């Protein structure tokens, strides 16, 4: 070791994360999309449409920030869509009953925290994969939502909430401001605060984090609570935007939020994540949908296009493998199965 000059040189060349081809893939894809859409439509880069894109991405973005914490911590939250509907309905019911907007928001926040706690505690107690746990709680959430709302949209909100629906501080819709605020908080929590390091360690190697003295269970639960709170924010925002709560809203949010996180380049199995990447992932999805709407492409073709872009985006991995540095590391990522057996999974021997 000590006397080995090669290892020092080698180290300098490998290992150090550097801006690689594959990390540029999604940004390049985004730029390409923007260029194509600007050329082929006359309204894409208009101020109105940009705000439009931002407005329509807001909800997905907010829940994806929450999902980023969960995934970074090694979890997975399939209940986010169900939660958005549930918390939205709760907010609306309380607002309708009390005619007080603040109480409604508070109620949604409380159910968000409680639901996140439920998810997190079940995950750490039952020690079953969060995929299954949150699938279960998601089904429960859907049922509870339908019962609470009587399967109907909940109206009768205080009239003043209409202000939110149309309000545009500084010319930007309030829902975009809300997204920006959520982003700032998330960015701080993940990248600046020590909490972010705890989350990434817990997700990167849970046992190692535990042995280093971190409270991994608490961290896991906290990530689910954050996701619940962001789901509540999203639910309340939808309620405000639609001026009624919709029990059926949010159906695709869980899968698309996971997709946005991973599309951005964070690791699906945790330990590596960034809010900027998530934002990028959400942007790609939203720009595609907006562009196709502008082009007048029908729903069915839109689905095809979104799916293809998904797959294309994942080809970034292909680039990664083809890039010379890591090219022939056969032992590294076995495709389908389970590569990091060494990592989080001792039982795999």
């Amino acid at each position, binding site marked *: 070791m000590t006397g080995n000059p090669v290892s020092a040189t080698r180290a300098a060349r490998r290992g150090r994360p550097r801006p690689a081809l594959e990390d540029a893939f999604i940004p390049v894809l985004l730029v390409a999309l923007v260029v194509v859409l600007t050329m082929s439509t006359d309204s894409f880069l208009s101020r109105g449409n940009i705000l439009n894109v931002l407005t329509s991405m807001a909800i997905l973005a907010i829940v994806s920030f929450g999902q980023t914490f969960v995934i970074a911590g090694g979890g997975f939250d399939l209940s986010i869509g169900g939660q958005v509907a549930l918390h939205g309905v709760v907010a609306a019911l309380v607002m309708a009953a009390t005619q007080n907007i603040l109480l409604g928001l508070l109620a949604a926040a409380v159910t968000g925290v409680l639901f996140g706690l439920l998810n997190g505690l079940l995950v750490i107690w039952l020690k079953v994969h969060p995929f299954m746990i949150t699938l279960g709680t998601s089904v429960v959430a859907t049922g509870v939502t339908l019962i609470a709302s009587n399967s109907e949209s909940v109206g009768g909100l205080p009239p003043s909430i209409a202000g939110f629906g149309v309000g545009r501080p500084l010319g930007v819709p309030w829902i975009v401001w809300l997204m920006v605020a959520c982003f700032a908080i998330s960015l701080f929590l993940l990248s600046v605060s020590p909490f972010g390091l705890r989350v990434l360690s817990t997700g990167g190697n849970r046992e190692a984090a535990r042995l280093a003295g971190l409270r991994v269970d608490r961290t896991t639960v906290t990530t689910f609570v954050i996701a619940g709170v962001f789901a509540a924010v999203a639910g309340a925002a939808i309620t405000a935007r639609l001026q009624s709560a919709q029990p059926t809203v949010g159906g695709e949010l869980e899968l698309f939020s996971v997709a946005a996180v991973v599309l951005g380049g964070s690791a699906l199995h945790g330990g590596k994540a960034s809010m900027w990447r998530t934002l990028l992932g959400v942007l790609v999805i939203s720009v595609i949908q907006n562009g196709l709407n502008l082009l007048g492409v029908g729903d069915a073709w839109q689905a095809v296009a979104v799916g293809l872009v998904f797959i294309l985006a994942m080809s970034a991995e292909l680039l990664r493998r083809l890039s010379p540095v890591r090219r022939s590391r056969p032992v590294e990522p076995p495709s389908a199965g389970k590569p990091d057996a*060494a990592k989080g999974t001792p039982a795999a021997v």
Partner: protein
Amino acid sequence: MTSSSAVPAVRTAGITKRFGAFTALSEVDLDLAPGEVHGLIGSNGAGKSTLIKVLCGAITPDEGTLTVAGDPVSFTLPAQAERAGITVIHQETQLFPDLSVADNVVVSRPNLRGPAGLGLRDRRADRAEAARLLESLGLTIDPGRLAGTLDLAEKKLLQVARALRSKPRLLILDEPTAALEARQARRITTLIRGLAADGLAILFVSHNLDEVLESCDRITALRDGRTVARLAGDQATPHLLAELVAGQQLANAPDRTPHEAGDLLVEAELGGADIAPTAITLRHREVVTLTGLLGSGAGRYARMLSGATRPDSGGVRIAGRLLRPHNRRQAVAAAVGFVPEERKRDGIQPMLSVERNIALGDIRRFSRFGMLDRRKIRRTAERLIDDLDVRPADPAFQAGLMSGGNQQKVLIARWLAAGARVLIVEEPTHGIDIGAKQNVMHQLRRFADERGCVVVVALEGDEFRSITDRFVAFRRGRLVAELAGNVPHADLMAACLGTTSEGRES
């Protein structure tokens, strides 16, 4: 074997393998004769495992040729190498934990029954064959057991059984004895000699140079991917081999200087899963080595001591303060550092940088106003990297990509940064080369001298003689002896084995 010089079973010529800009193997020549045990040695990262992967078709070399029994071949799949008679037991245990022992043995070619082409598995034949093969290796286990429930040596032997089933002409074993206790390791080396006597060519990789000296007919040493020496077994001396691996003159291990122990630091009385309640005390400036055979309980005891696992009874007092059991967090707060046996699996955060790995032991110390204090982290990491000679000396390097020895140092750095006073280290020398070993020993001794005390857990306690003040021997879940650091080797062994000191050669 007299025929060994005739036609080599397998020969490589000019093998070169690059990973990007880094050359892992450079023009390596090797010939392996039937009936011969060929030793392959070299420091961590010398390229041993890479060479083996080339031999078995797991990776394709950039240059060079491979001949089997005189015919040039090129493999792109492990299956092709296997068909050509080359079988490998890899460094990482390659088993299917959820499959039975029998299934693990026959996995690549299960026995079939019924009309040809119908493809019905014959499980009875599978079991019989597995039992037979395992018995020929001296192992009687139920072939229906799940492989995940075997212990380490059993797992290795299971892999040997699988390898022998394909009747290879060349059997490659990549560090088969690492993590095995001496007697189990001896089983493996004896087995190897026996197989060679039956006419197999054997390529044997080990960091245990004594083992290599004892069992190999010829020895090849790699350094930085190049062949630096080819020796006949009888030309080699321990000293020569050590130098070949380390690439330099090794300073002689410092003579043990007696350390006068300081104040009482740790008092523990713990009992747990198959461990009888046992009391241990540790003082300032002490290095205590817990040792015993595999499964003796030394490791389990140390893990309870560190708060990593739950004891059934008892507790730990650090500097007079009683800790809650099974609570790593509180143990860390009381300055107890722990470096687990499988550092890659349980110690390192593979995706985080070296500096963040170091900061992890006490995140609070590295935060200000609810924010990570990046400058402080960087400064501390740079100082420790320099201190412990971590390579590469780059705080932003991704820890998962480092070699084992350097990961070990990063973990020690973590506890230094967290201000630990008690350091509990399991098997600190597993899988690291002799140069790195010296360095780690040095660091452990220094830790005890400057910070508090160190607990080493090792199957081969004797290896730590030069830094140990006190040995504690475990057998079958009991503390059987506390011995001074300069106790004769034979007495230490006797304590572990439960025999009298004449019972065993040294």
